[in-house]
Every structure is written in C-alpha cells, then in structure tokens.
C-alpha cells in the first residue's frame, strides 16, 4: 500500500520516463538511416515548387539540427533535446514558412476531440454492456450484443474505417465522408458550425467505437464474472441488499478499478487508431497531418508530430493516473 504523495510521485516519475524513453527512441530511429536525410528531405520538399535559396538555407540549418547532424553525437543529442523541450521544430517544409508547432497546434484539438468523444463513448458503453452481460449471463440480448461487439474487435481500425467509408460513401450515402466540417462553413461558434462538426465526426467516432467497444465489453464481462464470486458480493446478496445496488456499487464499481488502469494502458493503441481513422476520413487532425507530411517529405513535421504525440499521450495517461485514487481508495501499488 502506498500513501497518496508517493503514489503521485511514482506516477510523475513514470511520466518523465515515458517521455524520456519515447524521445530517445525517436532520436535513435532518426539516426538509424544510412541516407543523408537532410538533402533527401530538401529534395523532396522542393520538388513540387520553386523555393527561394534563403528558404532552403534556413531549412537546411533547422533540419541539420533537428536530425541532429551537427557536431559530435553528444552535441547532436543535446541539440535534439533542446529543440524538443522548446517545442521548436522549425518551419514546416511543406507549408513553408509556417512553424511546425502552429500546424500541430491547429490539428491537435481535432484529434483530442475525436479521441475524447470516441473513447468516452466506447469506454462507458462497453463497460456498461459488459458489466450487465457479466451479471446477467443468461440474457440472450446481451449475449448477442457481446458477439456483435467482439466481431468488430479483432479487425484493425483501418479496415473498419474503410468498410464504413464504402458503406456510407457508395452504398448508402447519408453521411459526410470527409473533412471536419462542411466546406462552405466559416469557423464560428454557431449552431450550424457545431452541427456540421458533429455530423462530420460521426463516421470517425463510429469506426473508433466499433473497434474499441469489444475490448471493454469483454474485459468488463470477465471482470464482473470474477467479481460476482467475491465474498463481498455473495455477502451483500445474503444480506438482502437491493439487486440494483449490488450491481452498481458492489460489482460494477469494483470492476471499474482495473478498467481505469486499462484505459490508461490502452491510450497509446487508441491513439494509433485515431491517426489512421482520421486519414481515412480526411479529418483535419494530427493523423491526417502526419500522413500528408510523410507524402510531402516534410521531416520536421513528421518529427514534430511524433514527439508531440508521445508527450500528449503520456500526459493523458498521467491525468488518468492522477484521477485513479478517486476510484480506488486503496491507492494500491501497481
């Protein structure tokens, strides 16, 4: 058992470790290439249009630093870190001279919104249905829901999104397929705009939810079918405690504890899914940005998105970890 402050400190330490190792992996990966990445990037970035020589010189400078190619390995390493800590990835090559941070900052809210809504929806619904299915094992409707949820679960995000695109794009075109909001809309805080954003998010959220639902469903169902055999549940039944109370406060409430941990642990995977789903539906988030950055050969943007993703996901995990004691009074060591 740990006290609250030690718990917080360990979680903070873990957060720092995740960021540290993540960034190091990024550094190693960028240094694993045998090609001269700077010249290649510049060639790729300039092949589409004429860029002024000064711009190319600027690019070369920031690229060299970003790739960490100036000075010895140690210098390179520290220069790399400095850039990252300052959040300064230089100008984007494909959208020169807009800084990478601006592009990422513009895309991040879309991804965050998409992730938040789909994850919340999926987690709540999956846990609710899974919990009920674990408690009322003989219910046919719930068993059917389980089969349905599980059928989608093993299929990768890309395939599900793609199939949805086919279904709603070609067979039954009722939903907008692409973009974050209507083409003719101006970005303003009006009902029309919000409605359009909501409408455009239906398919991406749906494909994320379809894949995610099965996991939470199964996890919760098996947790609940274990928890119903716990002494405190049997005892509450013996005590004539109301069924609804037992289900909510004894069974589900206890099963939620590991599910919160599970949420923190699967955030990375969910993020992967969001990236690819965005790309399929042309959603204006970091996923679409990342893929188009690769196509445009925009190294600074790719590196910027990668590092921001690492930091953002670990921050989200840290947030969940910090909330964890609210749901588990024991604040157990993990």
């Amino acid at each position, binding site marked *: 058992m740990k006290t609250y402050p030690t718990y917080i400190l360990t979680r903070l330490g*873990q957060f720092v*470790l*995740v960021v540290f*190792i*993540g960034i190091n*992996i*990024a550094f190693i*990966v*960028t240094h*694993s*290439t*045998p*090609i001269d*990445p700077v010249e*290649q990037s510049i060639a790729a970035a300039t092949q589409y249009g004429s860029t002024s020589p000064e711009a190319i010189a600027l690019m070369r400078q920031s690229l060299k630093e970003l790739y960490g190619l100036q000075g010895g390995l140690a210098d390179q390493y520290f220069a790399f870190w400095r850039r990252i800590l300052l959040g300064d990835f230089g100008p984007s090559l494909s959208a020169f001279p807009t800084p990478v941070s601006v592009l990422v900052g513009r895309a991040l809210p879309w991804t965050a919104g998409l992730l938040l809504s789909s994850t919340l929806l999926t987690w709540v619904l999956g846990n609710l249905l899974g919990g009920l299915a674990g*408690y*009322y*094992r*003989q219910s046919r409707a719930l068993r059917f829901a389980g089969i349905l949820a*599980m*059928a989608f*679960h*093993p*299929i*990768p*995000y*890309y*395939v599900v999104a*793609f199939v949805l695109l*086919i279904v709603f794009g*070609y067979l039954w075109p009722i939903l907008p397929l692409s973009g974050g909001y209507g083409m003719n809309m101006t970005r303003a805080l009006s009902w029309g705009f919000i409605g359009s954003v909501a409408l455009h998010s239906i398919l991406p959220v749906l494909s994320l939810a379809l894949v995610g639902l099965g996991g939470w469903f*199964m996890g919760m169902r*098996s947790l609940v*079918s*274990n928890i*119903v*055999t716990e002494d405190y549940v049997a005892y509450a039944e013996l005590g004539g405690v109301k069924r609804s109370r037992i289900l909510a406060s004894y069974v589900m409430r206890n099963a939620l504890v590991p599910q919160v941990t599970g949420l*923190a*642990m699967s*955030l*990375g*995977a969910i*993020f*992967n899914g969001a*990236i*690819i789903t965005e*790309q399929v539906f042309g959603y204006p988030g970091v996923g679409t940005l*990342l*893929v188009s950055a*690769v196509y445009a050969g925009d*190294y600074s943007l*790719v*590196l910027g*998105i*990668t590092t921001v*993703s*690492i930091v953002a*996901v*670990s921050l989200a*995990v840290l947030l969940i970890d910090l909330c964890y004691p609210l749901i588990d009074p024991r604040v157990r060591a993990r």
Partner: protein
Amino acid sequence: MGRTLLDLLRFNRQFASGAALLLIVAAYACLSFFSPYAPNDTYVAPPDVPPDWTYLMGTTSRGQDLFWLLSFAIRNTLAFGLAVAVLSRLLALAIGLVAGYSGGLLDRALMSLNDTFIVIPLFPILVLFYFVMRDRMSWGLLALMMACLGWAYDARLIRSVAMSLRHREFTETGIFSGMSMRQILVEEHLPYVLPIVFSTTMNNINWSIGLEVTLSVLGFTDINTPTIGVLLYWANQHTALVSGIWWWIFFPVLLVVMTFIGLFLLAVSMNEYIDPRSRLGRRAP
C-alpha cells in the same frame, strides 16, 4: 499443453471454429507454392476481369490474377505476423520471467520500462521509421522494429504468472538443489506460462498484422512485397472502388478479417480456459 489444445478443440466451439478459420486461411496461403505466376508478375492476365471460372477472384487493373496474388499476399502477411510474434515472444518471455522471478528492484525497473512501452504510441514512431528508411524499408526490418516495440503488454501478463510460481514448492526445491536461475525459469516455469504465451501470441499476431496492413495501405512499407496491405495499397492507387473493381478490395479484406477473427477466437477461448473462475458461469441455468 498438447492435451489442453486437444480438449479445447473437442469441447470448445469457439476454439474449434477459430482453428477451422485459420486452417482455411493457412491452406489457401500454401496454395501460393503452386502458383503459375511469380508474386511480382504484372500484366500476365487481362486487367479488370470480374470473378469468373477462369479467374476465381477476378483480376486487378495491373493484370494480375487475384486468386494467386492473394495467396502470396496472405502467406507473406501470416509470415510477418508470425515473425513479429516469435521475436517479441522471446523478449516478452525473457523480461516477464526474469521480472516475475527476481522481484524487488529489478522487477520494478523492468515493469517501469514495460509500462513505458505500453504507453508510447507506436504508430507515429513506425511512420517516422519509414520516413527515415524510405526505400530501404523492408519486410524483415519492419518485423524487427515491431517486435522490439510490441512485447510489453504480454511481458506484463507473463510476469504475473511467473510471480505466482515463484513461491511454489518446486521453485524452492530447484533453488536448494542448486539449479541456476536460467535452469529454473526454462525447465520449471516455462511450461506453466505456455498457455498464456499461446493466447498472447494469437493477440500479438493480430496486432502486428493489423499494424502492417495499416502501414502498407498508406504505402509506408516495401510496396513491392505483396501483403494484404500492399494489395489494398495498389487497389487504392488504381481507385479500384470508384471504378467498380470491388473484388480487388473485397477478397483481401474478407481473408484478413477471417484471419483476425480466427486468431481472436483462439485467444479468447484459451483465455477462458486459463481463468477457471470465469468458466464457472455462476448464473448459468
């Protein structure tokens, strides 16, 4: 372990149907060895022929017979999944067993590392990897990279089993009789963790194939080795869907979904087998 699998096959419908699905997929993959074409042959058949008796699955816009091409693709995809699974199994087993067995500080350090790899979003890193490798990106390199990044979830499971084994009698007997840690882990503990290794292997194959498909569809791999994802990539390049060449997309997706569901069913039924409490089905009539 062998007995267990046999029992599952006989008494567990999920397991049996999963095995059947995979058997079909595997048999189809084996057909590739009898293909009249080489995997990268193009324009050997008339393009865009819908499925008929000559071309069971139709042909692509690049003049390939989809039936044979797909057999290569699924073979490569399965091999890829297996390669990642085997490599990451070695890592997961080594780290999980050592952490669970030794406990203490080493365990804490390894699990910290483990949690780190669980949290880090791999997809952007793999994209970055492709970005710097470009044309040098190969099937094997990607498998290696994914194995190095994808062991963490399973190492945690293996560790929890290993931890429960640590205080069993045979471990202590082993220690007293002077067995080395490696001997104890390999000879005494490994058999106990095999069932869980089996189910995590299925999940891991699923995971790696899923990522591979995703990366290839975007063109972020070696697009000259046919895999399911690469097939879809070319289909997209030729806007197959818009031009109504549905079979170019339908059959690869069908096959890969069969694979996913098959693997998943094996993993799930095995998991249920491992956890006896969830088998009880207390409220079942």
